[in-house]
């Protein structure tokens, strides 16, 4: 597995924001796992802040599109999971203050 590729994809996913919180899905801790197989197949495990949120489908699609657009990626699959359920404690410390999260 290429950690460089994982980092590259993680960086690219920062283009996707959660509309409600206005921060990117990576820093919000919504991306649980990024797995790169053979340096070209990507599997992403992600969540949303709220189960059943009407924006869920759009967020999943956006994450898939962005990952797929990373040079060298030939296939990207995104799995939605609520295990564990997202918690504000997953937010990166550097943006927690911006959100007023505590």
């Amino acid at each position: 597995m290429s950690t460089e590729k994982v980092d590259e994809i993680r960086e690219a996913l920062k283009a996707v924001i959660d509309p409600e919180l206005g921060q990117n899905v990576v820093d919000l801790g919504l991306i649980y796992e990024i797995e790169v197989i053979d340096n070209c197949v990507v599997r992403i495990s992600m969540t949303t802040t709220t189960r059943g949120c009407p924006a869920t489908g759009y967020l999943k699609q956006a994450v898939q599109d962005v990952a797929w657009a990373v040079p060298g990626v030939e296939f990207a699959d995104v799995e939605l999971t609520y295990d564990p359920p997202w918690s504000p404690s997953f937010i990166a410390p550097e943006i927690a203050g911006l959100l007023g999260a505590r």
Partner: protein
Amino acid sequence: MPGASLSRWTLTYFACALACLVAAEVLMVMGFGYPGAAIEAPETLILVHLVAIGWLSLLLCGALFQFVPVLVARPLLGEELPPVALAFILLGLAVLLSGFAGMAGIIVTPLEVMPLGGSLLIIGFGLVIVSLGRTLWAARPLAMPARFVVVGLAALAATALFGESFALILSGLVGGEAALSLLLNGVPLHALLGLGGWMSFTAMGVSYRLLAMFMLAPETERFPTSVVLATGTLTLVLIAAATPFALAAESGLAGMLLAAAVTGLCALGVYGSDMLALYRQRKRRNIELNAVAAIGAFAALLAAGLLLVFLLFSGSLPDHAGALTYLFAFGWLGGLGLAKLYKIVAFLTWLECFAPVLGKRQTPRVQDLVDERHAAPWFGAYYLAVGMGTLTLLVELPLAFRLFAFIQLVASLAITRHLYRSRELLNVPADLRRGFARPHPFWPQPIARKLP
């Protein structure tokens, strides 16, 4: 599928609801109906049904079509039903109101018009119940907030059946001693099942989820919530079970209603402490205007509960039922409705306009669609007007009531203007909205355009 859970007709419901709110407030400013007329006068019936069906029920139906799928994390079943239901409800309301206008001598209508209006409303609300009921049924076992909605929908069915019974009796199509007795004694049951069961109980259930969602509060199912569900359901069962007493004009009716008042106040008390806990446990320190404005609605609910207790003990409930209903309908239900509309309209507009390009280009946040600084004072003005309006009703100053009704009207119009600005993306910085088409203010987009 992206967008599968975006309710297409919700904004059309909201627009119709707001039009009814403004119409009702204009009537109040003009001095039409209570307190200028008696509480049982046909003019008051016009006002009450314009608010209860036109404003509050349409608002709630529109919100439920969007949020029941969120509550159960499944798409709405029977997606073709919302526009048909809306047409039946609007037509039924218009026919019912024209029947009341006939009773008041404002226009000439045959008496049979009222039960016809009631039947159309039963079909409309029946379709709402079928669509939401199927969605809920398919999602069993249900989480706590969704169970509130189930009870609320049952209360809606009971309210509609009560209403149709009254229409049949008033039109003379159904007669007899029991019918007359129901007409004389059953109105409080109809009102309590509608305002307390259908509207309040459903709003309470949805508020648990919505407030937790928007304030990042823990969504764990707490024991007190099941106490609210149990005592609230018991209250509604007691009210429904009082029907035979109303039919037979027996003295047990007052006892049943008193028991319902006790369990109902218990439910409200625990609900209040639940909401307080939710606000305290929120992870988002800076809360948005929708959550701040909702506090006014909770305060109105608390005030209405205290007023009920005072009126019960002082024996003056029959004299001031109008003031209590006004505070409950406009302060609690209407206030919560306007507060949540402020968020929902922006959120749905964001989904419609910006969600399809998420990740492909820079998009604004949902909060960029609103202008809280300029909207907040209007929520304050609204609650102040409703509070003062209640006071003027209690001390019987009808002219002063009309003045505060005018302030309430102006505040409602200003909030509606803010909702319109959200829809038109007028608060979004120009560079962020460039290249995005504005959605129609209240009409759904054709399906082909909606899906990316």
